């Protein structure tokens, strides 16, 4: 089967005016990537690393300076309109909905825009409303929605025409834990039932861990890492952290298998243990802790994505 | 008192500098004002000629002065009714303004006047240069120059203070765009932007004179074009001062009422 995204030497330069002088800035530099249908790819990098520029080239908004790109087997700039029927994009920052119209109305317009037959429109809308739990606010104007509700509506709007490729730009930014969780579950289900390919940029390691089986890291427009999460963990040594609140003061919890004691607070009432996600699981570490002391509460902290990126960047220099 | 003067002096300067950042906009304004100016020349000169060389005290030279001076003032006289205060009332920022040890009305008007004075440089001078090039009538009496400069300043302040009234209507109205557009339409017409008000039918001219709009643009031009002598100029200045007191006083009263309204409604 042919690739859903394929770039060869993809490069994009901008001319920026720096006071009086003009200078060339390379936003994407010689990017060669192939994404197969059904993959879920996290596209990660610092602000200004070239993520948005890449997405704009994949969708035909920007013309590459050099190199080639095909998306869904089409040339994005030349075949923009045909491509639009196969791609759905969610921009975390800009809305595709009509802010003064009820959500349902926006969906109807989008169905007309994508020329969905009436039966398909009904079925797909019902599916999305059900899976994204939007029934409560279907008749609310978009401008009155909470951020979480709006984001769900945005995702539904981008996926209404059942695109083969879904690109999500910071989909969970600013969302509360529950909303994030819901959105992730939806995307997992969507991928499972429709075989949709996912490409998402994010600052949230949780998104990557729950959703992606492949990670691309971009640094100053260049591809810095392409591989799975296990490899990323190995490459960076980034670890997850188990934080436990204990019932009574206890000595430091050292000697837990595959885990390392980081710190204790308030006479050991709160302790932090880091562990390598590849060597063990949070459940196993927790079980080992619970055998020794009585635990009141616990949380698992994900490695900070900025930290992972920083380590990758540092390793390259 | 001196500290107070300094504050307003600085606000004036800030308004002046802020305008100076919009260079391309100023160029666009120049093109626009010249184009409209040429269209006005065509139709108004034809009117003067059709009337046998003089219409309501305007010969070709005075009409030229009227046209290029009114185009020169376009960037400085607020005939649009658009103000910063309207935005700040809408987004609630005005509550912060009330906390400052400044008079909200005076601060707003001063800043806007600063911007308006700056606009005279990129937008006013080129229009006057065109007028000078094609020929304008100038007043016979040298006293007319300081009088028209004063009248011009008063005109700018009146226009800004009157537009402020539209802005503060936002304390009571949810949406001020409708009134603002109505204001823009009526003010330009009655200020004599497209046709000098002396060319109006008598009843319409009297209607215009019953509003502050001719004080913004028409009267300064009348003085500089020499359509009125020094005595007439002093009368027009007195009328301008009266209108300034009226719109200024009303603005002050509305600002206070608006503040009370905010305190009661809780913003």
């Amino acid at each position, binding site marked *: 089967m042919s690739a859903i995204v394929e770039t060869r030497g993809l490069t*994009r330069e901008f001319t920026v005016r720096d006071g009086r002088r003009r200078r060339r800035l390379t936003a994407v530099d010689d990017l060669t990537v192939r994404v197969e249908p059904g993959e879920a790819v996290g596209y990660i990098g610092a602000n200004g690393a070239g993520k948005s520029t890449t997405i704009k080239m994949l*969708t*035909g*908004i*920007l*013309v590459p*300076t050099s190199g080639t790109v095909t998306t869904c087997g089409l040339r994005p*700039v030349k075949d923009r*309109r*045909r491509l*639009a*029927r196969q791609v*759905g*994009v969610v*921009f975390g*920052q*800009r809305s*595709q909905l*009509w802010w*003064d*119209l009820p959500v349902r109305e926006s969906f*109807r*317009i989008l169905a*007309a*825009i*994508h*020329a969905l*037959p009436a039966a398909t429109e009904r079925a797909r809308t019902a599916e999305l409303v059900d899976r994204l739990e939007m029934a409560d606010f279907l008749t609310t104007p978009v401008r009155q929605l909470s951020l979480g509700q709006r984001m769900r509506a945005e995702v539904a709007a981008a996926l209404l025409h059942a695109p083969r490729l879904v690109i999500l730009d910071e989909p969970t930014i600013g969302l509360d834990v529950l909303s994030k969780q819901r959105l992730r579950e939806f995307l997992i289900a969507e991928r499972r039932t429709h075989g949709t390919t996912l490409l998402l940029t994010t600052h949230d390691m949780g998104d990557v861990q729950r959703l992606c089986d492949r990670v691309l890291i971009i640094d100053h427009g260049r591809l810095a890492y392409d591989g799975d999460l296990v490899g990323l963990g190995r490459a960076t040594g980034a670890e997850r952290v188990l934080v436990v609140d204990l019932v009574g003061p206890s000595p430091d919890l050292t000697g837990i298998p595959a885990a390392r004691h980081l710190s204790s607070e308030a006479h050991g009432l709160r302790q932090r243990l880091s562990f390598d996600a590849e060597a063990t699981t949070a459940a196993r570490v927790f079980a080992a802790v619970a055998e020794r002391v009585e635990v009141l509460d616990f949380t698992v902290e994900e490695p900070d994505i900025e930290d992972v990126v920083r380590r990758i960047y540092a390793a390259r220099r | 008192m001196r500290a107070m003067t300094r504050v307003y002096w600085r606000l004036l300067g800030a308004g002046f500098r802020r305008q100076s950042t*919009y260079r*391309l*906009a100023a*160029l*666009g304004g120049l*093109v*626009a*004002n*010249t*184009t*409209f100016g*040429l*269209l006005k*020349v*065509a*139709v108004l000169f*034809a*009117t003067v000629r*059709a*009337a046998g060389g003089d*219409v*309501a005290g305007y010969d070709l030279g005075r009409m030229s002065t009227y046209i290029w001076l009114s185009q020169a003032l376009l960037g400085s006289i607020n005939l649009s009714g658009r103000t910063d205060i309207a935005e700040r009332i809408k987004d609630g920022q005005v509550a912060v303004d009330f906390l400052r040890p400044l008079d909200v009305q005076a601060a707003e008007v001063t800043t806007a006047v600063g911007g308006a004075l700056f606009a005279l440089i990129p937008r006013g001078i080129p229009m006057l240069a065109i007028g000078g090039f094609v020929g304008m009538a100038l007043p016979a009496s040298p006293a007319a120059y300081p009088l028209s400069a004063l009248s011009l300043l008063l005109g700018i302040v009146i226009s800004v203070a009157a537009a402020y009234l539209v802005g503060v209507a936002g304390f009571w109205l949810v949406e001020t*765009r*409708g*009134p603002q*557009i*109505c204001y823009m*339409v009526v003010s330009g*017409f009655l200020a004599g932007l497209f*046709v000098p008000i002396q*060319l*109006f039918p008598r009843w319409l001219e009297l209607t215009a004179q019953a509003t502050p709009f001719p004080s913004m643009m028409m009267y300064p031009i009348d003085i500089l074009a020499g359509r009125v002598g020094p005595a007439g100029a002093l009368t027009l200045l007195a009328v301008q001062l009266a209108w300034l007191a009226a719109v200024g006083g009303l603005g002050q009263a509305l600002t206070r009422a608006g503040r009370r309204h905010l305190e009661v409604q809780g913003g």
Partner: protein
Amino acid sequence: MIFLRRSGGPRPGVTDELALRVRLRPYRAVLASRARSQASYRANFALDLVSSFLAALVELAEVWVLFHAVTRLGGLEFHQILLVFGLADLAFSLADLAVGHCDNLPTYLRAGTLDVFYLRPQPLLLQLATSDITLRRLARASVGLVALIAGLAVNDIAWGVGAVALLVVALASGCATFAAMFVWAGALQFFLIDGAEMTNAFVYGGRYAATQPASVWSRPLKAVFGFFFPMAFAGFLPTLRLLDLPAPAWLPTWLGWCGPLAALWAWAMALLCWHWGVRHYRGGGG
């Protein structure tokens, strides 16, 4: 779209009509919802109608006061200029109603809304043109319409197929020309930041010019608003032809029939600028 071609009926004509209807559905859906949402804010909408009506009325008054001061201007009397005003202003108002929101392109560019248009399977310009409709401008159009009807009533017109055809052609091509002006101005916003005032000089200055007797213009003005931006074709030239008035220099009366050519020229210019603008935005070859 594939399902459509497959579901073609027995007669090709029917299929084409069906295809066209489906093709127009997206635009209809957007426009209908825009219209509904504007009318639903009753109080604001009423006030918008009033201010729009007032604006057009004042524009008419600006013409009228001149003819109050003198009886004849540029060879026309007030009842004749009424026809010029009616034709030009109605055409402008209808174009403004339909595509006047192209003025908002700088806002779309700054907010990134334009990128969203790229993600939809319709042509970009068509999406922009049909992304909104400003119903309050109906009030504006009503003034132009009344002026036109009054102008037709008070003038001595040799009614016949030719006169009706001339009116229809003039109005339709005037409308198209003004629409092209809005698109042209929008296209230049890709290059000009904060430069809307410059293009406004020709769009709104064009409207002002179109309601004047073009016979009073100087030669440079005739070049700019007579031909480059073909404003004289919207009202003045068809009126000369309709009322059989003497032609001024440079503007023979047979030009009264040439509105469609003017519209074609305006659209060619608008589309060329649009093409350049989009190229610049996408960064191809720039």
